[in-house]
């Protein structure tokens, strides 16, 4: 099996590296050795993916270093998205201040996937600042986090002047409303959906919001 194949190659690497402390996970140790080496892009890309499954907190620093890499940044995020330890979320959050462009969009997306509440202030700022170029991604991440604080930022954008920003906020709000309803905060979910209905011209999106609102009302009876 693949896992056992991982294991054999990992043990060889560990032996070669003269590792004296017991490894937390042999696959992770082998992958970290690859990242620290002069290996090529392909090998490093694969190492990042392996760390996404088998890596722990010891892998975070090596992956975080790659978040501004032209090619490996996406692979590094695949590693960090998978590591459940809070240090992975912290590394992504710190990268918000150092990476730009497409890589910044990726970091914002990963924070949403991980539902990193600690990153709320940064995500809120990015959502409200279209000049950084990732406001749509930041809104989507706020939607996935789906807290009351995230909701407030989406509401603020829904009240704003930019039609395209309002549409992005509306899509995010639909997700956030589901999250709020799941956490039994029905009043907040209703407020958010009403905001969508008022902010967007009648059509597909408002119909979706209205249907969601109706189902919340039906569910609360």
């Amino acid at each position, binding site marked *: *099996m693949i896992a056992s194949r991982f294991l054999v190659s990992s043990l060889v690497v560990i032996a070669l590296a003269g590792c004296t402390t017991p490894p937390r996970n042999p696959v992770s140790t082998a992958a970290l050795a690859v990242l620290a080496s002069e290996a090529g892009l*392909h090998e490093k890309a694969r190492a990042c993916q392996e760390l996404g*499954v088998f890596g722990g907190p010891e892998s975070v620093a090596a992956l975080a270093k790659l978040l501004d890499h032209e090619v490996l940044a*996406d692979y590094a995020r695949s590693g960090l998205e998978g590591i459940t330890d809070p240090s992975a979320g912290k590394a992504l959050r710190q990268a918000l201040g150092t990476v730009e462009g497409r890589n910044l969009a*990726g970091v914002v997306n990963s924070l949403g996937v991980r539902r990193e509440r600690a990153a709320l202030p940064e995500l809120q700022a990015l959502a409200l600042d279209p000049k950084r170029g990732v406001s749509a991604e930041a809104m989507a991440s706020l939607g996935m986090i789906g807290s009351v604080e995230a909701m407030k930022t989406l509401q603020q954008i829904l009240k704003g002047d930019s039609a395209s920003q309002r549409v992005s906020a509306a899509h995010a709000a639909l997700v956030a409303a589901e999250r709020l309803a799941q956490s039994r905060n029905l009043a907040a979910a209703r407020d958010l959906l009403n905001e969508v209905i008022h902010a967007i011209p009648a059509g597909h999106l408002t119909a979706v919001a209205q249907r969601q609102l109706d189902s919340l009302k039906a569910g609360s009876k």
Partner: protein
Amino acid sequence: MKFTRRQFLKGTAVVLGMPTIIPASALGMNGTVAPSNRIVLGGIGIGPRGREDLSAFLKQPDVQFVMIADVQSVRQEVVRVMVNRRYNNQDCAKTREMFDVLGRPDIDAVLIATGDHWHALATILSVKAGKDVYCEKPCSMTIRESQELADAVNRYGRVFQAGTQRRNVDNFRFAAELARSGRLGKIHTVHASILPLEESHEWLTGEPEPGVDKVDWDRWLGPSPWRPYHRDYVQGRWRGYYDFHGGAALPEWGAHTVDLCQWAASADNTTPVEFEAEGQTIHARYANGVKLVMRLAGFKGEGNWVVPGTCPVRFEGDEGWVEAADTGKIAVSSPRLLEGGAPKESAGTDPTEHVREFLDCVKSRAKPAANADVTRRGHIVSHAASIGWRLGRKVQFDPVTESFVNDADANRMCSRARRAPWHV
């Protein structure tokens, strides 16, 4: 040009005063369908398999295909010519940019037949744009994508049909009904054929990119991580590569056969609770004790299937069994099971009835046979089985939370990061 209300009324008066000549075809006479009853269709990523689907759509009198988006110019042109020949006009538009299709308010529905790595994301972007979707299978790369796809379809209230057309092919449908109706007795085991499990992490040696006007490599990759361009990938030989082919190839046939087993076992709303690989065979068990066995396909004679052909399935109860495959044939444990009429033989690859059902549902807003919810669970079963195979040990699965029980490694295999800037 901007019309004033006065100009509009003046023009209307002139029109009302003239004799009205409306072509019969526009009214839906002469065997044609009136424009108001037509479903306007666009296509996203249509290669050889997509063209089989498209042929089925073009046969339908109430479909008007108007635009193809494909990142390969050659494929755009092949589809454009195919469509224009069918309609005997030059009206089909082509574009590299799928958002051109999604941005057209006249398009009601889209046919998505990209590579697998795009299926879920393209579906989600389409339903966000208010389109109904017919999407080729497998529809997801991971368990998380299976969930995201179904959640988005339900959130936006769109009609979705996975291209798992065997739900609408007679011999498969007949076999599933035998199982579901109790005529086989109590179902205890269902068998799904799968392809050999494989997962390559290799990169082909890079070639110069042909240029975005011929092949937009960046867009072809989409949410998958970057690797150097090679023509093999874009010419359909992307299967087997981890980054483009989810679930170690298990969902490739599993999208059909596991889905049919779920249906036959009346398990569309659940999943097995346990998976264990034994070589290339994976044994799964539902909470009610029914077994699901995923084993090699029968088209080369492997697996001792009674009915030869691709995508065989077998359903066993305590009073009998049935087997069906793509040859259109069916085998049963007793001739009495065919009393009342055996199904007609039809090939399992013909999507015509499946396409027709989708179109009917677009009009009625009903859920088709391969809707997003059954697709979610069927695909999750295939992905969960492949994760068990990758880990090489028994894994427990919770059908309610759709996650592995006390198994962090397995749970971390349920999703993959998307390449920036793609997100749902």
